[in-house]
């Protein structure tokens, strides 16, 4: 896979103001150096083990399989990682890099709040000052995570501009970084942004796929499925299987109120090439290149862009991308909760929804590996709200 000059085919690149170039160059060389340094890797692995609780288990979802009358399903339990999602894998790595580069402050954007919580967590662990940008709408619908971040000592700045969601939080984090680039490291939470982020975050998340591949031993999944917002958990688990052409890779995007409604976050399915937040990828945009508002019940998938490598995997045909609606995701939360005793995050529920829909059409002896990227505690209140409004309606 190409990463020359940060390109994945025609996607990727470094579309940022000149002011940020020195920081990106510094980050690229710090990452390359550290990633090749066994001491750094040992330190990170140690933290992933003793602090984040890795390896996360593979759980056989037998009752779910039976309920669906379909193939065997294994869940990669990123929901059991410290802070409740896969986001910690990336944050521990980037925090170590920040310290190596002598930065004293970290900033991050967050949608659902999972990346914000993971960033606030590592900032506390390493004694770094921490500011989290979060769209005002997301602050309202993920209030529990706001409290968690504050408890961890981070400052949460609600962003009132634009659509007041993840896209705008990212804009504001970039504006902060342009002004504070000397002492601040920007912990981007997904495989998006300018080079080296898509490449670096993928490598830091590859632990998910590599671990799963090891845990499977001689078994080989027929399908690997994960939800895609920016796409870091999907890229992380794909990484363990992308070189084996026999493994089908499926990313599931948010269809929101339905693709035809126009209110969705299905960037790979409906986007066209363009540049947002530092890289060329597929985007939801109008004919004039103005970025459109995405919509999803899950704040983490409510983003009009997607990691450039996903755009490349789609173009090359190596991965396929499907969608699940808000309603399907809500049903999937309930399905997994009642069959397996696991409440998934609304984001991860999109992958569960795809499995629920497609399982019967797969050969009975197939093995599905589903990345359960996060747990749903943060969503319980808003799910209650949606369920209520559905019942009332």
């Amino acid at each position, binding site marked *: 896979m190409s990463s020359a000059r940060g390109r994945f085919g025609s996607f990727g690149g470094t579309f940022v103001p*000149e*002011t940020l170039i020195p920081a990106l160059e510094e980050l690229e060389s710090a990452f390359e150096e550290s990633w090749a340094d066994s001491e750094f890797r040992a330190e990170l692995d140690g933290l992933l083990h003793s602090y984040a609780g890795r390896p996360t288990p593979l759980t056989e979802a037998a009752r779910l399989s039976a309920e669906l009358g379909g193939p065997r399903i294994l869940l990669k339990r990123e929901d059991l990682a410290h802070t409740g999602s896969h986001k910690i894998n990336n944050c521990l790595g980037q925090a170590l890099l920040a310290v190596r580069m002598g930065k004293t402050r970290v900033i991050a954007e967050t949608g659902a709040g999972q990346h914000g919580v993971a960033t606030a967590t590592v900032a506390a662990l390493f004694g770094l000052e921490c500011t989290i940008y979060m769209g005002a709408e997301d602050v309202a619908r993920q209030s529990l995570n706001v409290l968690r971040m504050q408890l961890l000592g981070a400052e949460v700045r609600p962003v009132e501009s*634009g659509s007041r969601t993840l896209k705008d939080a990212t804009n504001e984090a970039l504006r902060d970084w342009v002004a504070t680039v000397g002492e601040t490291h920007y912990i981007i939470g997904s495989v998006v942004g300018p080079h080296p982020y898509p490449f670096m975050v993928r490598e830091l998340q590859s632990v998910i796929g590599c671990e799963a591949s090891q845990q499977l031993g001689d078994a080989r999944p027929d399908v690997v499925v994960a939800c895609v917002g920016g796409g870091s958990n999907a890229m992380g688990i794909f990484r363990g299987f992308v070189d084996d052409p026999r493994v089908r890779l499926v990313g599931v995007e948010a269809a929101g109120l339905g693709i035809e409604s126009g209110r969705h976050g299905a960037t790979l399915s409906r986007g066209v090439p363009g540049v947002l937040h530092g890289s060329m990828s597929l985007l939801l945009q109008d004919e004039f290149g103005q970025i459109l508002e995405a919509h999803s019940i899950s704040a983490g998938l409510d983003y009009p862009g997607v990691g450039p490598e996903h755009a490349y995997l789609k173009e090359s045909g190596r991965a396929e991308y499907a969608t699940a609606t808000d309603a399907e995701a809500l049903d999937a939360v309930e399905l997994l909760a009642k069959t397996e005793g696991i409440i998934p995050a609304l984001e991860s529920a999109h992958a569960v929804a795809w499995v629920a829909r497609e399982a019967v059409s797969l050969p009975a002896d197939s093995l599905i590996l589903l990345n359960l990227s996060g747990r749903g505690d943060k969503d319980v209140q808003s799910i209650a709200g949606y369920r209520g409004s559905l019942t009332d309606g």
Partner: protein
Amino acid sequence: MAEVLGGPGGELEAALLEKKAAGRKVLIAYLTGAFPSVEGCVALMREVADAGADLIELGIPFSDPVMDGPVIQRASEAALQSGTAPADVLECVRLADVPIPVAVMTYFNPVFRHGLERFASDCSESGVGGVIIPDLPLEESGEWEEIAKGVGVAPILLAAPNAADERLAEVCERSRGFVYAISLLGVTGERDSLSEVASAIAGRLAPMTNLVVALGLGISTPEQAAEACQVADGVVVGSAIVKRVLEDHGSPAELVAAMRAAMDAEKDPHCLLCRAERVTHWFYDDDECWIAECDQCDTPMVVWRSHGMPADEVADRLKAKLESVAIEVYGEKGYWFDPMMRNIPDHFHCHVRPAGGFFGPGSPLATG
């Protein structure tokens, strides 16, 4: 030597180089394109040109302007909400038909979506001489530069204060029209003072290029503009102008005129009046003058901010400002104007003295 640039880009570059050769500082005024409307923008462009701007930078609004602070964000959002398309901004350029060059500033996605070739030729045909794309660094701008230059549009590149010398040299080598020197680490918006890095970056760029080096970001007052021009060939003023348009108070043209005056003002570093130090009580100050107690004779005096003698109408205006202070100090008819300049005869100033006296009431030499 850079190749010859034709079209409106060549004219833009030549016009700025001419100013530089004549020792005139370049004032670049930013307006959000097609805001508050196409007609409103056209009128503003003409006013700003009349007020002494040397170049107009027109923003093509983008939904996600990461290099812009709150003021320009608000104007962009408002323009987009009223349905502004890139074509509307180019239409403003055609309709305004101002006698000074025009450049547009936008982000890469609208350009990419429009198609690089089509965008460049639409600019050229509308008379746009240069294009500024702040999220297109050297790594990504090569193709665009060639396309733009091919149709006579100057790709105006930005130089960051934290860049290494080699990179700045490459920016200077590849930029056309002028070199946009980023005067601080941050986004657009007004600041209380000119950042320290501003003069450093302008000073580093000056020996690297023959083009005009204009400092932009955070320059919002005539004093800051004048200060920036101590080292740079010119300034870009954005948020301070757009704020006046947005809030509909204070004319953008007046601000441009005040900046023009401050930038053109000759300053003599040895002249006490040029230094304008606050050594005595100041009664009043604005963009063109200050009124303070004279440290020799304890009477109010008005001092022009520029070294030299103003036109009669300016002198009359300054005296009128002095008169209101005089009435406060001495009461109606209790004073007389003394335009005689004794110690510093080459920098306009004028005293008001008490009726029948010479020294002010606070002076030990005061009579009566």
